């Protein structure tokens, strides 16, 4: 027995066989489960957008999405339009499309636009498509939800921020791929996301400033909504900085759209 498994030829054959078996098993499993997984991811995007708009099943302390079977219906009822703004690498607006116009051109729903790919395209000097979801929140107020995407400590972080026409935050949802449980992963906890509610993204003069996740914040109860700061999570500095950075870089691009809204 010992002799047989020690031979080089046996080792090589074993390695090849193992890779083939495991590889084809995983490939088979991944491709057969793919439709279910992408359907789950599609529903999750709807749930995320609805959550940012304030349409969710939150209980007193924890963040709960609207259930998946209700999400498509609620999405159709609450999201009035999905605007797609196309900008060039210098931030100049090339065109603005409604959901129907965009769907006709690409056969894709705007909420499925991959923000990561759009960021990469802009980085390489290409166009960037900015989706913006317009709808009514629970109080009947019109809100504008924009997706954001960035990096935390270990991996990607992303979110959706709902704003009113003055770029005051009306709700936020954050998520992450692999932040440390108990620390950075807490950006998707209520106590962190709720702090953004009512925060101003603009300064008093109307310039874009963003919202900084600040350590040593003198305002832990977050009463001051115009300081452009929310309280950071202890032990999650880099994830918090990532949240600040993606809010600044991604939401800034929507500023011209909101300027336009006011002049109308």
């Amino acid at each position: 027995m010992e002799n047989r498994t020690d031979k080089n030829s046996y080792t090589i054959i074993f390695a090849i066989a193992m890779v083939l078996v495991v590889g084809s098993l995983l490939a088979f499993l991944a491709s057969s489960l793919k439709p279910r997984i992408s359907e789950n991811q599609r529903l999750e995007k709807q749930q995320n957008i609805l959550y940012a708009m304030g349409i969710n099943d939150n209980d007193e302390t924890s963040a709960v999405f609207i259930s998946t079977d209700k999400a498509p219906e609620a999405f159709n009822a609450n999201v009035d339009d999905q605007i797609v703004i196309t900008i060039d690498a210098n931030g100049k607006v090339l065109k603005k499309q409604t959901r129907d116009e965009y769907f006709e051109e690409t056969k894709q729903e705007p909420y499925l636009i991959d923000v990561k790919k759009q960021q990469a395209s802009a980085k390489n000097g290409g166009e960037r498509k900015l989706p913006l979801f317009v709808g009514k929140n629970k109080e009947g107020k019109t809100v504008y939800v924009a997706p954001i995407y960035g990096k935390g400590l270990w991996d990607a972080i992303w979110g959706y921020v709902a704003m009113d026409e003055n770029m005051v935050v009306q709700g936020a949802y954050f998520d992450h791929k692999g932040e440390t449980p108990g620390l950075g992963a807490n950006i998707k906890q209520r106590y962190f996301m709720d702090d953004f509610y009512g925060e101003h993204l603009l300064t008093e003069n109307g310039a874009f400033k963003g919202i900084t996740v600040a350590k040593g914040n003198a305002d832990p109860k977050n009463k001051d909504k115009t300081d452009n700061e929310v309280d950071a999570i202890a032990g999650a500095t880099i994830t918090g900085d990532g949240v600040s950075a993606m809010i600044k870089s991604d939401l800034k691009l929507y500023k011209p759209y909101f300027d336009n809204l006011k002049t109308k």
Partner: protein
Amino acid sequence: MGLLSKKDTKLITDPLADNNPITIQVLGICSALAITAELEASIVMSISVLFVMGVGNVVISLMRNIIPSKIRIIAQLIVVATLVIIVDLVLKAFAYELSKTLSVFVGLIITNCIIMGRFEAFALGNGPWRSFLDGIGNALGYAVILVIVGFFRELLGSGTLLGIPVLGDPIEKTGLYSIGYENNGFMLLSPMALIVVGIIIWVQRSRNKALIED
């Protein structure tokens, strides 16, 4: 105990205390430091490791006579990675919410040295049933330490347990906070996990002198 012989029972009880994977074998320290800031994360990680160790040890034990010794570490790595990815994919398709909670643990499980350590030290030389018991035992030993560390870090660091405030409200100054108690934010950082593990090792060795090495 008709099901387990005395020797088999030892496989489960030994790693709980006198041969604990974290405090005696000093394995799996990295994940013990990383995810114990909250009790809930500790428990989820413990259950995940329990599953992977139980199944992984059996699979490796069944393959022990055909794995070439020259590439046995790679073979072990493939088995554990495959197991974890299969579970992750199935959860993503059928229990999406649960998979999002667990997805951050996937990387930590694959690189957990307790798993590789038990494959190498036990499963390669023992039958499937004993390997299964050894896997469960070591995973439980790991779980005990994780839960203890998670309990103290969350309690002293955030004043909560499983996310529920138990010491009052630190901002409104109620409960214990009304008499000047403050949360120790340092408990949330990894160095304190190492110190808590160190204290556990100290307590354990001072109670059982046989564990002290020269």
